[in-house]
Each structure stands twice: as C-alpha cells, then as structure tokens.
C-alpha cells in the first residue's frame, strides 16, 4: 500500500454517522401506497471510524440489511421506504445526495455474488465503478490493479467473472468496492452463499483491509464464527429493530450473554461451548474464537479439571433395512465426469450429510439418487425403486426432494393448495387429504397463512412450506439440497429442528450442506466428496475432526473441532455442541436453543 499515513485526524467526520435512524418500508401497488406500520430498524445510532469493523447483529427482520442499504443511500432513494433520522457518509447527508454520487464515500458488497456482475471480464468489472466516476483512464487502471492485487485476483484479470468460484466472485466484488476509492465499506452478508473455503478466502481479504487502517467496515454477518476475530464493535438490534446494546464484541458477549441467547441471534460456537462448561478467562470474559476457547480448554485439561464429554447414544443408528443402495454410480455431462464411480448404502433412520466444495458433485449425486435426473440403470435403488425406470409419480410418493430455492417448486396459488397438490396428484381421497393438509399446516406453523400465495411468504416460511409439500406424501426418504443456503441462522435452526423431528420419527434424511457445524450437530453420518469421488464416509465425529482430509476436500473443520482437536482423547473428537458437558443446572436453558 502506498499510503504512508492514511489515518485522518480525529476531528474529521466519521466515515458513517447514523442518528436515530427509523425506516418504514413502503409497498407501492399502482395507485395505492402502503406504509408499513412496523419500523425496522427503529431508532438506531451508530458510528464507523477509519480502521474499525462494526458488526450489526440481530434476529431476522430486525432491519440489519435495511440499515446497510441506508448507509449507501439506496434507502430511501431507490428502495421504496420512509426514513427518519439522519445518515451522514463522510460528512455528506444521504438524503440530499443521490446514490451514485455517494459511491465515492461508501462502497457496498452484497450477498449474492451473481447479482453483482455487470461486465464480461474481471478487469472490466473492477474498472466499471471508476469509469462511472469519470476518472482518467490511467487512474482507473492504477486503482484496478491495486484492488485486484489486494484480493489476489490480478493474475486472473482476463477471465470471465463467471469462471471464478463463489468466494472468488465475492473477492471480486470487494475489489470493485475498493476501486471506487471509498473509505467506508458496507458488507451485507458477504459470505452467506459461500462454501467454507470461500468464506475463509473472503474474510482473509476483509482482515487485510481492516488491518490496512485506511478503511472502515460496516458488516452484517450471521456466521459470527467466521468474523469474530476481526470485529471491533458490535451493535445489537432486538426483534423489533430497536438498538439493544453496543460495544466491543467480547464485552457485549460476556456481559449480555443471556439476553443475546434469549434474542435468538446466532452466537460464536466457542462462546456457547464456554457457556455450557461455565468457562471464563481471568477477567471474566467469554471466548469468542475457537482459538481462545482452545486456550481455555487446554488450561483446564492440564489442571485436570475438564469433565468428560457426553456421548449421546441416540446418535448411533442401529443398523436397519437398506433404503438407499448406490452401486458404481457415474454421472457425466458435457464430456465431464461429475460423479465418479460412487457406491454407498444408507439404512433406514440415518441422517446423512453430503459435504464437499462447490463443484464437487454433491447436487448432481443427490439428483441422480433421488431420480430427479435419471441415473444409469441398476446403479441406484431407493425406497425399493430403480429411479432409472420408475414412474415419476411412484418415485415422488416415496422420495421427497427439496430444491435449493423453494420458489422453484411452488405450483399453485395458495399455501393450502400447495400442500394439497401432491395428494391430489396421487389420488388421495378429499376427506383424508383435508385432514392431512390441516395437520401439516399446524405442524409447520402455517395455519394462519393457509390462504396466502406461496411467493408472498417470508424466506423461512417458504422453506418450511417446501419441506411440508415433500413431507405430506409421507415419503420414506427426504432429500434436501442445501436447505440452509442463503438463510440466516434462526431460520436454519428452525428448519433443522424440523428435520431432527422427522428423523426421529423414522424418516431417512439425506442433505447437502456447506455448514460443518450443522453436520456435526445433526448428522448421524457424513460423506465427503471431492471431484465426484467419495473421500470419506463415516460418523461426523471422525470425519470432521480429520484435518488433512477436510483440507483435501476444500472443507474446514467445524468451529468447535478447531478448539478441541489438539486436546487429549476423548475430547479431541468432540465436534457437537451437545457433547460439551453442562457444568451448572442453569446452563441448559441457555444453550438448548442453538444445539
């Protein structure tokens, strides 16, 4: 970096200064304008200075993303909304400056890497912003090179952005933000759609940017584990969008842990594990990173005061009948082998997680096994059928398949009709079908929304409905493709609770996920894929704690495993939060929510 002393004097304006920000979303429907009665966020004040990383934390619907949009002027200029209070970016009031003119003071990285690509090459993409700012060509190219080198993409400047991995595309989006030259970066869930390796890539870059001391960062992130070590301050919003508490991350976590758990926000696994164990450091602080937890655990262990981890007997599945039998399955598409000679068996009642980097062949494998795409004959048997030959309706009644995006599967105009559809297709009698629909509405918490159009549900409700439509036909096997993709932790936890319940009733569940802590906490078995081949197949405790294996598959160990892997046995294989013993009778309540 060329700047010798980028730090401005303290009397300069803050990069971002928000005061009493209140936003009400506006629904414009032709003539009528409907202003939401509920304000989210509702009276938030925060400040970001140079060199700081400020994290926004809060449950779904508390207005974190709205606040991020208010920081760059999209609220209220572009997104239909009424805003109260003031937002100043680099001393400029966002209300009196248009979004494009604010972009030299604030740059934003959004959640979806695909929706940020405008041009046909990595270099053109980075130059797009500075070109809009009417900078001279030489300056544009200087900035582009600097920004691309900073995110490690300079060597790939001639490639099409689509050729980059998800993590690569988000690093490109960060480079685009840097090239605008704005000191404030707003990152709105930049890693929500990424695999573990991609997440790490992105945060390595953010860490560098934060350390450079020339930028301030406003971060919205659910995966606190990924970002905990680089966050300076946290601003917590409660469920109704009000500012609950703010301060340094460690202090806030240590002093308000019970309130935060009650709020339902996702917290670092290291912190939750320490709460279970009743573990605090010398100053009474809770650990926030796996490394800090590891230090505390080691000290306890050395002092001989670490209790034995719990081993949950219910996790090991008694061998039952074979439900899925895959024998030498190979799937090729466009002259590429995507699934390469894969064989495995799944017995009734297992909860199998398939993991691997993007492009490892997980979805292709799942689709072939469930018969969504036809596999070669005699390579797959599922629920007594060969999907290569079985009738689609037969197959669908025994195997439920939930696509990544629930909207793709909606085929009717109301929640009730959506649930009834599968039964009608299968010729279930109307009386019985009504009973089953009511039962399902009740179970998935959708009774009040029965008449609503599926597309008007919230993200979490859509996901529940899509699982409900698959479950109502009472399949023997439920297959889910990244059920937590793009969802925040609360919704993910809600869904996983549902899957656990179905699983405990005897449904065999197979799912693809990038979230290793989910695998650790919920799966009875894990298959790791790399380049279309099975690299490992076994219980999560063993597979996930095998660091070299995880690296080979471009995966990362669950955060808890990173804290326990170097401890003496049996602690070195503890990867599940539920296996961490409870130290006091008050603790269980605290942790049950997330486990």
């Amino acid at each position, binding site marked *: 970096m060329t700047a010798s002393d980028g730090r401005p004097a303290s009397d300069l304006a803050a990069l971002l200064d928000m005061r009493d920000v209140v936003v009400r979303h506006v629904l414009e429907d032709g003539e009528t304008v409907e202003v939401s009665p509920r304000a989210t966020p509702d009276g938030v004040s925060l400040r970001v200075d140079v060199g700081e990383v400020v994290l926004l934390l809060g449950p779904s619907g508390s207005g974190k993303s709205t606040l991020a949009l208010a920081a760059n002027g999209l609220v209220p200029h572009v997104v239909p909304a009424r805003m109260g209070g003031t937002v100043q970016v680099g001393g400029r009031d966002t209300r009196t400056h248009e979004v494009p003119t604010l972009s030299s003071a604030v740059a934003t990285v959004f959640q979806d890497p695909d929706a940020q690509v405008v041009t046909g*090459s990595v270099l*053109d993409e980075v130059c797009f912003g500075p070109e809009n700012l009417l900078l001279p060509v030489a300056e544009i190219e200087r900035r582009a090179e600097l920004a691309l080198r900073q995110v490690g993409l300079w060597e790939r400047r001639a490639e099409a952005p689509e050729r980059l991995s998800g993590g690569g595309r988000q690093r490109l989006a960060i480079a685009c933000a840097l090239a605008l030259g704005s000191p404030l970066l707003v990152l709105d869930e930049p890693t929500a759609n990424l695999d573990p390796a991609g997440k790490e890539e992105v945060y390595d870059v953010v860490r560098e940017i934060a350390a450079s001391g020339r930028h301030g960062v406003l971060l919205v992130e659910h995966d606190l584990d990924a970002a905990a070590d680089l966050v300076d301050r946290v601003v917590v919003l409660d469920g109704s969008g009000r500012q609950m508490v703010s301060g340094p991350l460690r202090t806030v976590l240590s002093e308000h842990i019970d309130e935060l758990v009650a709020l339902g926000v996702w917290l670092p696994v290291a912190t939750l594990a320490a709460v279970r164990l009743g573990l605090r450091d010398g100053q009474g602080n809770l650990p926030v990173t796996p490394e800090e937890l590891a230090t505390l655990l080691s000290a306890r262990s050395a002092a001989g005061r670490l209790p034995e981890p719990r081993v949950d007997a219910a996790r090991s599945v008694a061998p039952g009948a074979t439900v899925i039998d895959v024998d030498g399955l190979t799937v090729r598409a466009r002259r590429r082998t995507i699934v390469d000679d894969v064989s495995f068996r799944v017995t009734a009642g297992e909860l199998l997680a398939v993991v691997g980097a993007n492009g490892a062949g997980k979805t292709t494998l799942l689709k072939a096994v469930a018969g969504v795409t036809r596999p070669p004959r005699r390579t797959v048997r599922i629920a007594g059928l060969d999907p290569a030959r079985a009738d689609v309706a037969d197959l669908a009644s025994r195997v439920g398949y939930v696509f990544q995006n629930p909207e793709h599967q909606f085929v009717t105009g109301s929640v009730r009709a959506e649930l009834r559809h599968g039964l009608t297709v299968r010729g279930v009698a109307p009386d019985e079908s009504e009973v089953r629909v009511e039962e399902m509405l009740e179970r998935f918490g959708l009774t009040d929304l029965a008449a609503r159009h599926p597309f008007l549900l919230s993200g979490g409700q859509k996901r529940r409905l899509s699982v409900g439509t698959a479950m109502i036909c009472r399949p023997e096997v439920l297959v889910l493709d990244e059920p937590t993709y793009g969802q925040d932790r609360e919704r993910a936890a809600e869904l996983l609770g549902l899957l656990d319940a179905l699983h405990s009733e005897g449904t065999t569940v197979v799912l693809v996920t990038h979230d290793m802590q989910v695998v650790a906490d919920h799966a009875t078995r894990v298959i790791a894929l790399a380049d279309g081949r099975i690299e490992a197949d076994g219980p999560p405790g063993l597979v996930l704690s095998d660091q070299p294996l995880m690296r080979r598959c471009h995966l990362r160990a669950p955060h808890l495993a990173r804290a326990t892997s170097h401890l003496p046995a049996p602690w070195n294989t503890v990867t599940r939060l539920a296996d961490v013993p409870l130290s006091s009778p008050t603790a269980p309540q605290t942790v049950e929510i997330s486990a």
Partner: protein
Amino acid sequence: MSAATVQAPVVAEHAVVAAPARASAPRRAFLRTANPLVSLAGPFPLMVVVFFVADLRVLAAMGVATAILVVAGTLPGPRVSAAVLLGAPLTAGIVAVSFGFWVDAAAVASTPVLVQAGPWAYHAGQLEIGLLTGLRVVDLMLLALLGALATTGPDVVRASIQHLRIPYRLGYAALAAVRFVPRFGHELEVIRSAHRVRGVARGRGPVAATRRQAGYAVPLLAGGIRHAERVSYAMDARAFGAHSTRTERTTHPWRLRDTALVLSFWAACVAALVLAAGV
C-alpha cells in the same frame, strides 16, 4: 488463491493494463481491429440485397467473397475456418436439392430431366430454384457470421455510445439484460425438473404443455425481477449514472480505413445489383 498473494506490491507507474482480447483473437485480423460499427453497417445492406438478387452466379460470388472475408478478415481459427469453407457449399447443396423437391415440377417441365424414376422426374429447373434459396440462406448466414465473429456485444454498445449518441445508461442496461439470458436458461431448467418432481400437468398434448409453461412463468418472473433489482442496486452502488458521461477505457475511433471498409461493402451492394440486372 492464498492469503499471501494479498500483499499489494508497489504498482509500476505506467502499468500496462491491456483490455483482455477475445480468446485467440489475433490483433491483425483487419475486421476485428476495425470499428465495431463497420461489421453492422457494412454487411447489413448486403443482407437486404440478397433478397433482390435472383442471379445464381452473383449470389454464388457473394457467398464466396463473404466466406473469404470471414476467414481472412476475422481469422477465426482452423476449426471455424474449415467449418465455414466446407460447410457453406455443403449447406447450399443440401438446401438446393431438398428444396427442389418442393418446386412445382409442372412449372419447370421444359427444363432437362436430371433424374428419372418411373413417372417421377427431377428437373434441372427444380434444382435451379432450389439453388437460389440455398445460396440466399448461406449468404445470409455468412453475412451474419461476419458480424458475430468480427465484434462483440459490449464493443458494439460502446461504439454506438461513442458514435451514434446512444445514451450510455440505455446501452449498458441493454448489455446487463443480455447477461440475464443464460441465467434464465439455467433457472428454467431447474424449475422444469422441480415441477416434474411435483407431478405438474403430466400428460401430452398442447393443453398440458400450455399449463406446464404457464406454471414456469411465475417462479421465473419472480426470480428474474428480484435478480434485476439486485443487479440495479449493485450498479447504483457502483456510481452508475453519477455523471452524464462515463470514461471508456476502450475507445473505438472511426478511422479513414473504417469509412473505406463500409464504402467497399456498399460498392459490393451496387455491383451485385448492377450485375444481377445486367445479365
């Protein structure tokens, strides 16, 4: 990409940041180095002329000239070159023979018989009319290929903004729209299989097919609108529309050579019309 590469080295004062050339596009291909508008303004009148010329020799000459121009002017690589040089006459031949079958034999009964099988005869006149269509089809394909190989969408948009005074907001919005197309294709594929799994409107016939298609529209539109909205937020946040103009790193100057190229295309138009009329 490892974290180690993140360390930003000192950037050279005048780092050469060449715009990435199209894969394997040699710089010396004269139509590719010409202004992108040449590849539109030149071939387009010829495409119209093709419909008015009914002379086989003139049409054939146009085809040969365009094929040579495609290969020599855009240097598309050995595989495409071979496909053009072999495929063009082959296509013309196949279309000519097969189209000839459709021609009313009575109208050309006076022409010599080429093939006779019992009462059925294939006349030279049939082949001639077939060849007319075959040559027109091939000429049009080659002229379109010329434009496609000589330039790219973004280049045409940039050149149009620079020389035709098309507002850049419009041009770039159009480009962004083009980028949606492959994404929609993929999304439609996924929606199709998702609906199949749910057993939507199974069965054959136009009614079932229409119901299926209608079912794809809602999720496709919902996804499309959301995507478009996100892209426009991202563009706004990157200063799109901040000023009435924007810097273009790649300029497409209009040189004397470009005028000469377009004029020679137009001269070819006139020549084709004159030759066709004169014979």
